[in-house]
């Protein structure tokens, strides 16, 4: 068999193998300087996806900016005073000088278009061209500000304490750099005012910076923790080092490959180093067995080859299962998930290749006396861990019915929990509650119309239809209907401008705060407005031929449900009031909704594919469907329990969790593969010798019945490979526990999920597999099948 020769070759030429691994690593490392990050949520879906094509079209049709930073300014004593207003003016002026800011369309007090009537003169001009100098001017300004419904909840809060400056960015501008610059600008202003910098680009680019931090700091810490844990387990520095080297090499290989192929680092792939480090711990089974074997054989080379023979098959299959779990991700629609799956599948294969070459090679370098010293502790009888594991599994083996019954109760509870799961991706909540971004978002959502922006595009069949009173009144009706939703903070459209002009032309008479009666009036009012407004004022709300209108919807939440409510409300309104116009949602809020649903369906699909693939691998490995089913149960049980917990604690089921649900199958199945493979091996070894194996002979003397041989083998498996399983789980968990301290919630979620899953699935394997095997032995061993 080929792989055995790889092990033997490696044992014979250890230096060559190490040199090759390092050379490859250096080659991959040359790609690292090309590293780019991509934290734009848009790129979660391909540029060709319907929602992105449509959103781009809407952006073009209505000259909208992709990115907008919002600066909130709050003064508890009210914004409208000469001092605060002059600060606002200064800040706006300074902001407009920042490179990358689309100055022409910055909207704040000094720049936003206002339409007023003063002494019979119609005035279309920026709201605050000069800072009001005295009480009279202040009073007039206040009137201008609060009288224009277009301003309320947009640039002024109802209580007059908060204003906002909307800062669109040119394409390709770096949001974080601009946000940092803005923070510097506001820092210079002294006084009672508080400043909040919010908006999508800020969140996105801050996220990118944190991501690098995570990769740069948390991955090495995770590595150190694992290193210490391995050392404590094996008391051998060179073993710990070799394990870490394997992990490092595979990380370098796979990250180098991803970067080399031109993939930017996304949120998911930034987690790959920690994942690979954890997966590398699977080689613990090799070391674990090697120690036992060495103690039995006292011949290093023979022990290495025998070890690889014994654990080779399960290690190969677990690697296959894990790699398959990752590979499944490549079939998803969400790009970062695909890249992540590809990188990790490659990394896992690399790890396994190294397990069969690099590790045996390293083992040859370890001094014999050191191994001897360390391996003395590896005795099933003496080791406390082994004893504990044995007790755990004997619980399952001796009281299988009770164990299964308890399991069933837990299962029912878990299923109830899963029904409470809410699928939601809220990218603002990827930041911690007290982070600057979350605070800014909260303050602005309380004071103003909402930071999450969606659009509803009204599409008619003929040019100039939007100018008809019919269309205008319909759009107005939809706006009022949407504003009834608690998530909607403000809506604006061309209708608001037309009504405003109508009223102002008629000496500010509130009677005229309505849609005018004729198309000519509407057309002329719009023209009148466009005669001196900023071109973007109108461009943002109607298309050139007046066939389409864009209704802006400000939402007070980034939850996907917000936009779902909006779409539903629009449909309801359309049902009740038929119209020839069509209404289509767009904007970031809509993208989030589509993406959110894609995550859900991807997850379901991925989960089902992963289930099938893992099952097939199990069936192949065990050459038995029955055993595959038995191996499967603790796995499903673990996952159901975790989802139960997710449901009960009310954590959103978001992208990281859904990705994990696919991965977890591939990773948690490792334990079942190890357990069952080794158990069956043990059973065969016992059958061939007719008695229990060497060590257990001492403890279980005399001839053995099938039943007692079964129990004996189960307990042996729990104690010896079981120790490897526990070690593996503990290492895995310790690596991921670092993520619990990460500054971003997705990492915390992933950390908690993996820690929980690994520990739980190890315990489930050790308790439930013996119970199931004992309970189902009649079925499993029918016809002497082992």
């Amino acid at each position, binding site marked *: 068999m080929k792989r055995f020769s790889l092990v033997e070759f490696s044992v014979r030429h250890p230096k060559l193998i190490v040199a090759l691994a390092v050379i490859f690593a250096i080659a991959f490392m040359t790609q690292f300087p090309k590293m780019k990050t991509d934290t734009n949520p848009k790129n979660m879906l391909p540029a060709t996806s319907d929602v992105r094509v449509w959103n781009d079209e809407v952006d073009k049709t209505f000259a909208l900016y992709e990115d907008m930073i919002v600066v909130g300014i709050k003064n508890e004593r009210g914004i409208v005073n000469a001092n605060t207003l002059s600060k606002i003016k200064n800040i706006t002026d300074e902001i407009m000088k920042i490179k990358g800011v689309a100055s022409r369309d910055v909207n704040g007090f000094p720049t936003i278009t206002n339409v007023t009537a*003063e002494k019979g003169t119609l005035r279309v*001009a920026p709201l605050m*061209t000069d800072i009001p100098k005295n009480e009279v001017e202040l009073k007039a300004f206040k009137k201008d500000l609060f009288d224009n419904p277009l301003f309320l909840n947009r640039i002024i809060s109802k209580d007059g304490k908060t204003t906002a400056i909307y800062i669109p960015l*040119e394409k390709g501008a770096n949001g974080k750099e601009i946000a940092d610059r803005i923070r510097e600008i506001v820092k210079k202003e002294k006084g009672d005012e508080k400043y909040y910098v919010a908006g999508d680009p800020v969140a996105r680019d801050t996220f990118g910076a944190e991501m690098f931090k995570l990769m740069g700091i948390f991955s090495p810490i995770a590595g150190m923790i694992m290193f210490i844990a391995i050392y404590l387990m094996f008391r051998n520095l060179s073993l710990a080092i070799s394990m870490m080297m394997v992990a490092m090499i595979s990380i370098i290989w796979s990250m180098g490959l991803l970067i080399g192929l031109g993939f930017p680092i996304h949120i998911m792939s930034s987690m790959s180093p920690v994942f690979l480090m954890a997966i590398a711990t699977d080689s613990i089974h090799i070391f674990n067995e090697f120690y036992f074997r060495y103690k039995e054989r006292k011949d290093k080379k023979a022990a290495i080859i025998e070890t690889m023979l014994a654990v080779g098959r399960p290690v190969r299959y677990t690697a296959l299962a894990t790699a398959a779990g990752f590979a499944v991700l490549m079939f998803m629609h969400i790009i970062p998930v695909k890249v992540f799956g590809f990188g990790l599948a490659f990394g896992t294969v690399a790890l396994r290749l190294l397990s069969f070459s690099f590790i045996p090679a390293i083992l040859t370098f370890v001094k014999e006396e050191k191994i001897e010293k360390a391996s003395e502790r590896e005795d099933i009888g003496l080791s406390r861990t082994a004893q504990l594991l044995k007790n755990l599994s004997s619980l399952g083996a001796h009281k299988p019915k009770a164990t299964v019954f308890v399991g069933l109760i837990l299962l029912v509870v878990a299923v109830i929990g899963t029904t409470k799961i809410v699928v939601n991706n809220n990218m603002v909540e990827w930041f911690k509650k007290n982070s600057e971004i979350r605070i800014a978002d909260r303050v602005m959502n309380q004071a103003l119309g909402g930071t999450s922006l969606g659009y509803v595009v009204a599409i008619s069949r003929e040019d100039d239809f939007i100018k008809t009173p019919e269309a205008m009144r319909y759009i107005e009706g939809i706006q009022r209907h949407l504003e009834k939703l608690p998530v909607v903070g403000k809506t604006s459209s061309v209708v608001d401008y037309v009504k405003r002009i109508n009223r102002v032309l008629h000496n500010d008479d509130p009677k005229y705060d309505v849609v005018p009666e004729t198309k000519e009036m509407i057309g002329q009012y719009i023209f009148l407005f466009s005669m001196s407004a900023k071109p973007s004022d109108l461009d943002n709300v109607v298309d*050139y031929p007046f066939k389409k209108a864009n209704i802006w919807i400000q939402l007070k939440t980034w939850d996907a449900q917000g936009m779902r409510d909006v779409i539903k409300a629009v449909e309801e309104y359309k049902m009740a009031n038929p119209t020839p116009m069509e209404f289509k949602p767009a904007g970031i809020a809509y993208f989030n909704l589509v993406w959110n649903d894609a995550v859900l369906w991807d997850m379901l699909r991925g989960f089902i594919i992963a289930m099938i693939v893992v099952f097939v691998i199990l069936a192949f490995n065990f050459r038995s469907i029955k055993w595959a089913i038995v191996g499967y149960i603790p796995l499903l049980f673990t996952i159901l329990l975790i989802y139960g917990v997710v449901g009960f604690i009310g954590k959103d089921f978001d992208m990281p969790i859904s990705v994990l649900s696919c991965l977890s199958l591939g990773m948690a199945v490792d334990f079942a593969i190890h357990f069952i493979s080794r158990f069956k091996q043990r059973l065969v070894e016992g059958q061939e010798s007719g008695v229990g194996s060497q060590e257990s002979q001492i403890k279980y003397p005399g001839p053995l019945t099938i039943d007692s041989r079964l129990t004996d083998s189960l307990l042996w498996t729990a104690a010896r490979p079981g120790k490897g399983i526990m070690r593996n789980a503990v290492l895995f968990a310790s690596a991921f526990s670092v993520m619990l301290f990460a500054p971003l919630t997705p990492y915390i979620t992933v950390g908690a999920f993996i820690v929980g899953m690994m520990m739980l699935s190890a315990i489930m394997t050790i308790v439930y597999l013996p119970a199931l095997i004992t309970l189902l032995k009649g079925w499993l061993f029918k016809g002497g099948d082992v």
Partner: protein
Amino acid sequence: MAWYLIVLLVMLLPFEVFALSAEDVMKKSQAAFLYPGKDFKARVGMKLISKEGKERIREMTMLRKNYGEPGGDQKLFIYFFQPADVKDMTFMVYKYPVKDDDRWLFVPAINMVRRIAAQDKTSSFVGSDFTYEEVSGRDIVDDTHSIVKEEKLGAKDCYVIKSTPKAADVDYSYKLSWIDKANFLPVKEEYYDRRGELYKVFTADEVKDVKGFPTVTKRTMKNLQSGHRTEVTYLKSDYNIGIEDSLFSERFLRLPPKKWIE
């Protein structure tokens, strides 16, 4: 011999003794560009073209009458043909140097004349890339002018004048103008924003001689930042046609005389 030398010196003199200051150049340019003749009429077509190539059309008849010296009072009357729904809309401006202009608009759909005030230094003229001020002209005293260099632009010898606003009342921090030495018409203007980046470019694309007055009949203003541009064409340009003072009144705003607007 000495006589020839004198002739030669005299020929050289204008460049030495009568060299124009930057203000002089700008004044001559203002007179040539915005004040030629006693009055002026043109059918103006404006194409507002977005970055994606979508177009909005404005079509109007523009009538202008000068009162006093170049740079002095001026009255403008504009009648809109396009867009279709504003047909019959009229717009009138009394332009005064130094103080704010007076403007009136007639809204035919509600048969109403309204005075309108606009921030003419920064507001876009009917949605185009020109501001009101760039259409009607900026007061020369509002800027400090300097001659940066003299150079050839295409076949034209030009002065390059840098004009820096004295107050921060416009969107640009300074403007460079290429003024044709032959006729003092602007050939090109570059507008630099507060960051010092070039953001708007004006070009005079076609100059025709109308009744002895060189007239820019095609011009473009392009906003480099938004990618939006406005192309303007003057058709049927004419000077000294005898526009009466009475045209510039509310009465004719409501009912513009056919002979002038056609």
